[in-house]
């Protein structure tokens, strides 16, 4: 009887300890060094690896990239031809060096999630590289045009600068214009682009992803002409 009682108590205690120890659902995010070590093992040219490592490390530090999505992406890129993977990573490195957000984690638009989506759709590395270059073009054009209208700072912040609310505005606005042109079949001259972009910004502001004040200022200032200019500049890098 004493043994039975002791076993019961011991079992209850051990079970409770085990139950508390198990974390529900989430696995811990990889550390920056996990990601950078994986990158080192990918066999890319050493100078390129060094430049990308520095850009990613700064991105993890400032919130322009997350370790979880980056590691998944790097793992994916080992399954496609090396030169195609390198092309994709070069676009990401350049975007980071320009101070753009390339990964918002598991919520919302980002270049890294775009790559993962296109890989899930079975698109080739070349197609993905083209789409990513266009996305980068929309980011550069959006920042250049918004800066011209005084909506965002004109200077390039760089990868080490702390994130500013305008960084997310640039990302979301560029993404909306890009979606309209790339996936909705719209043209830069289509006046429908204004409602599409304004609607997107309002929704994101309502969710708290962009500061309301910033979103209101941008939506009030936007015109079909400004958006058409962004769309045209995205395809004409020499005019930015």
């Amino acid at each position, binding site marked *: 009887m004493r043994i039975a009682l002791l076993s019961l108590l011991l079992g209850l205690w051990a*079970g409770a300890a085990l139950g508390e120890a198990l974390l529900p659902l989430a696995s811990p995010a990889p550390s920056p060094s996990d990601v950078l070590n994986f990158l080192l093992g990918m066999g890319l040219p050493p100078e390129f690896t060094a430049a990308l490592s520095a850009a990613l490390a700064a991105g993890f530090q400032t919130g322009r990239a997350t370790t979880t999505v980056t590691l998944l992406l790097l793992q994916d890129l080992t399954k496609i031809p090396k030169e195609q993977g390198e092309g994709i990573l070069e676009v990401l490195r350049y975007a980071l060096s320009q101070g753009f957000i390339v990964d918002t984690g598991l919520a919302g638009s980002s270049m890294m999630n775009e790559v993962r989506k*296109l890989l899930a759709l079975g698109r080739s590395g070349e197609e993905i590289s083209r789409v990513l270059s266009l996305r980068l073009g929309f980011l550069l054009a959006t920042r250049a045009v918004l800066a011209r209208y005084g909506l965002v700072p004109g200077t390039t912040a760089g990868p080490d600068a702390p994130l500013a609310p305008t960084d997310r505005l640039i990302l979301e606005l560029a993404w909306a214009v890009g979606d309209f042109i790339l*996936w909705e079949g719209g043209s830069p001259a289509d006046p429908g682009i204004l409602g599409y972009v304004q609607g997107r910004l309002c929704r994101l502001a309502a969710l708290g992803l962009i500061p309301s004040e910033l979103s209101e200022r941008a939506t009030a200032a936007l015109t079909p002409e400004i958006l058409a200019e962004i769309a045209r500049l995205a395809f004409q890098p020499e005019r930015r």
Partner: protein
Amino acid sequence: MRWDEVDELLRAALAKEVEEGTRGLAGLEERVIRELARRPARRSFWEGLKEFLRRPTPRWALAGALAALLLGFALGRLTAPSPIPQWSPNLFVIAAPGAKSVAVVGDFSAWQPIPLSDPDGDGIWTASIPLPPGRYEYAFLVDGKWVGQDPLAEEYLRTFGEYVSVRYIGGGRADRSS
């Protein structure tokens, strides 16, 4: 009774006891040797454990301990502080009668499949996924085939000819929490 008579009685009683004790000691040495020879050699741990488990009381104790372990585990899971913020769950549902496997992929999983389940076998597959506020693109994979148009989505995008559904989670009319 006189004291000398008492002495005599005591002496007689003691003598009787000594005589009986001496009879009990006869052959003691042989008996001890026999008993030591009868005992088996030292058992291994596993043999000992097997014998222990064969006894009726420990078997009950073990069953009770196992039950207590499970109960404790459940209590532990309930009381454990969650490292994940308590976002409201969002229901992803698709009718796919006859499908062998259904999953959802999207921004929220970095496009890794999250399996849906159909426990009652009625062809309605569901998954409840807690998500922070955001705009999410997603699609279903039914037996590995891309199904991008979810009737519950708020928008659709066409990417390389394939549809992708979009939901806004976390506020206004867009919040489709289960």
